[in-house]
């Protein structure tokens, strides 16, 4: 899988690459401009020197000489750390003054002032050539004054100038990148909050995400997600409704089948037909139970189209009443069903209908799996402020390896030979979870039978 880069990395790349490229171009351009201006200034200074010399040339009897005291000339030469060199030649090219090793110009310009680059004394030099007529209008030619200066001086100045221009820009780029890095972190903070909100959600919670806290650019994404959540929850609700509706629709035909079977059982005299009808009757009983449990399950799930009627439930009273309802069934199987409670059993905030349904399923299971002559005890009490409901039976028990799996839908412990459909404990857990209660299943102290315990934490309330 290709690793997707982070938004921050992308933004920084998109910002810094063009910035650095532009900055480099800027350096080149700036260096060029700096050089141009430095050249202009230095050329002018060079010309000034040439003009100074020119102004002090005297002509006496066809002889020209520079009328500058030796000290001044030495000063001229030593100016700028002695980088300045000059040569004055007469109209015929005869030497008048200055550095004799000065190379001759490659081409002789007839302009009054001309500049060119040359190499002498092993160095790159910039040279200004100034022609000063010996006597204007006399046609006696001109004195050529050449002044040279080392080029490195100029490039040093240009570089210094450039550094001063470019360094603040570099700082600016670093500031911009830091601003983006920080800004993205700040800008993405709401997304991190959102991620945490989604991570902490229960898989049942399909409520829309909060839109207001995220940046406007992300809002369409949240809206799209909320739209998906809405469609998902509608589809889940539709499915649950379908299960509920289907179960409802099945009830009437099953009632018909059951009534007719019971009627036929009464009227039949032959043992063989009775046996067949008894089997049919057992099947209708099983279907009835399955339908009722499917309905229970559909109802136990949140958003099942039935508003949960939350109220303060007296768990002891509810357990007593529900257990009472099951006494005839237990007696019919010759099972001793009993009830114990503490007068001070803590109350539970919940849906009494669902809680009753939960206990119904626990009792149904217990009565089904306990052999005749067995005992079942329902207890409601308080432990450390938590309300606790337990159903204890001395049936065959659940092997340790299966204790978690029995809560799965349609899971049945093999070899129990009872016609359960495997939804009872799934319903129990579903309802317990809605009440934030904890279901545990373990054998009695002597290792036999089964105890199912539902613990309602003190602060729990229905979801």
């Amino acid at each position, binding site marked *: 899988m290709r690793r997707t880069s982070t938004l921050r990395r992308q933004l920084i790349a998109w910002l810094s690459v063009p910035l650095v490229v532009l900055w480099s171009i800027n350096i080149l351009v700036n260096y060029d401009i700096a050089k141009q201006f430095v050249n202009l200034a230095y050329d002018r200074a060079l010309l000034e020197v040439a003009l100074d010399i020119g102004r002090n040339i005297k002509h006496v009897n066809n002889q020209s000489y520079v009328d500058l005291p030796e000290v001044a000339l030495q000063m001229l030469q030593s100016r700028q750390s002695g980088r300045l060199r000059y040569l004055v030649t007469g109209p015929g090219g005869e030497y008048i003054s200055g550095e004799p090793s000065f190379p001759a110009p490659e081409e002789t310009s007839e302009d009054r002032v001309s500049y060119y680059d040359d190499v002498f004394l092993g160095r790159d030099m910039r040279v200004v050539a100034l022609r000063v007529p010996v006597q204007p209008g006399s046609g006696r030619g001109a004195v050529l004054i050449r002044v040279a200066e080392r080029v490195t001086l100029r490039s040093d100045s240009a570089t210094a100038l450039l550094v001063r221009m470019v360094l603040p820009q570099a700082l600016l780029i670093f500031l911009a990148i830091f601003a983006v890095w920080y800004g993205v972190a700040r800008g993405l903070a709401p997304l991190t909050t959102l991620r945490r909100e989604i991570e902490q959600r229960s898989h049942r919670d399909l409520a829309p995400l909060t839109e207001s806290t995220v940046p406007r650019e992300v809002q369409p994404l949240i809206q799209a997600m909320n739209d998906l959540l809405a469609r998902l929850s509608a589809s889940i609700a539709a499915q649950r409704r379908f299960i509920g509706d289907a179960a409802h629709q099945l009830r009437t035909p099953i009632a018909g089948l059951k009534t007719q079977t019971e009627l036929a059982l009464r009227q039949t005299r032959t043992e063989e037909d009775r046996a067949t009808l008894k089997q049919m009757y057992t099947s209708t009983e099983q279907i009835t139970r399955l339908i009722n449990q499917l309905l229970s399950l559909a109802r136990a799930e949140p958003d099942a189209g039935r508003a949960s009627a939350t109220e303060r439930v007296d768990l002891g009273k509810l357990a007593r009443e529900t257990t009472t309802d099951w006494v005839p069934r237990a007696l019919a199987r010759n099972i001793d069903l*009993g009830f114990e409670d503490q007068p001070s059993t803590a109350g539970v905030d919940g849906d009494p209908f669902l809680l009753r349904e939960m206990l119904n399923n626990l009792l149904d299971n217990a009565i089904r799996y306990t052999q005749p002559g067995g005992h079942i005890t329902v207890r409601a009490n308080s432990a450390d402020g938590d309300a606790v409901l337990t159903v204890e039976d001395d049936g065959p028990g659940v092997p340790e390896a299966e204790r978690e799996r029995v809560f799965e839908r349609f899971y049945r412990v093999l070899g129990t030979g009872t016609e359960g459909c495997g939804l009872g404990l799934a319903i129990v857990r579903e309802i317990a979870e809605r009440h934030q209660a904890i279901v545990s299943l373990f054998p009695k102290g002597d290792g036999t039978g089964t105890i199912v315990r539902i613990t309602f934490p003190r602060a729990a309330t229905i979801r």
Partner: protein
Amino acid sequence: MRILIVEDDPVLADGLTRSLRQTDFAVDCVSDGAQADHVLASQNYDLVILDLGLPKIEGFEILRRLRRRGSRVPVLILTARDVLEDRVKGLDLGADDYLTKPFDLPELEARVRALIRRGQSGGSSVLSCGPLTLDTSGRRAMLHGEPIELSARELGVLEALMMRSGRVVNKEQLAEQLYGWDEEVGANAIEVYVHRLRKKVEPGGVSIRTIRGLGYLLEKPGHAPD
């Protein structure tokens, strides 16, 4: 005794009709709400077994119209819905009992008998449980036709147990029944009365079972486990 069954499922309607006819009731059967409303407006019945999800006119509406006409015929609602609110609504509208499909035929028959008995004002005041009978107006109990000697409090306990025979009666309910004779009936006193009563009726085959933590239950003889 005339019973009207309002049920649109033909198989269930047929099963109900035939089983109730076997119990010597005269049974009429209609399959839609409009017919039911019409028949109920023109004829008298001792009991109506009413389905809720009906074509043309809904079950609740039939019940509402029936009670608006002032009829006091007992109504047993038979429905595929078992949502609590529906049950409450049905009873609020004047239904007398409520049974969810699918049901056990003996249970339906028992409720039909109970409703018809209740419908007959001033009807039999004799409760019975197997060989045991109790004349609540004459305050006399008979076992296999022989009168048995009971104190007023024992009689009160027996009456409470017989009124709910086959079901659990808790100590609070027994205490309520005895209230009026004694100012305060303690749990221990009730245990004593039950103990005495048990000695008198159990030789006749009727047993009073103690249900741990819940109360007592009166059992007919031969009420063998399946």
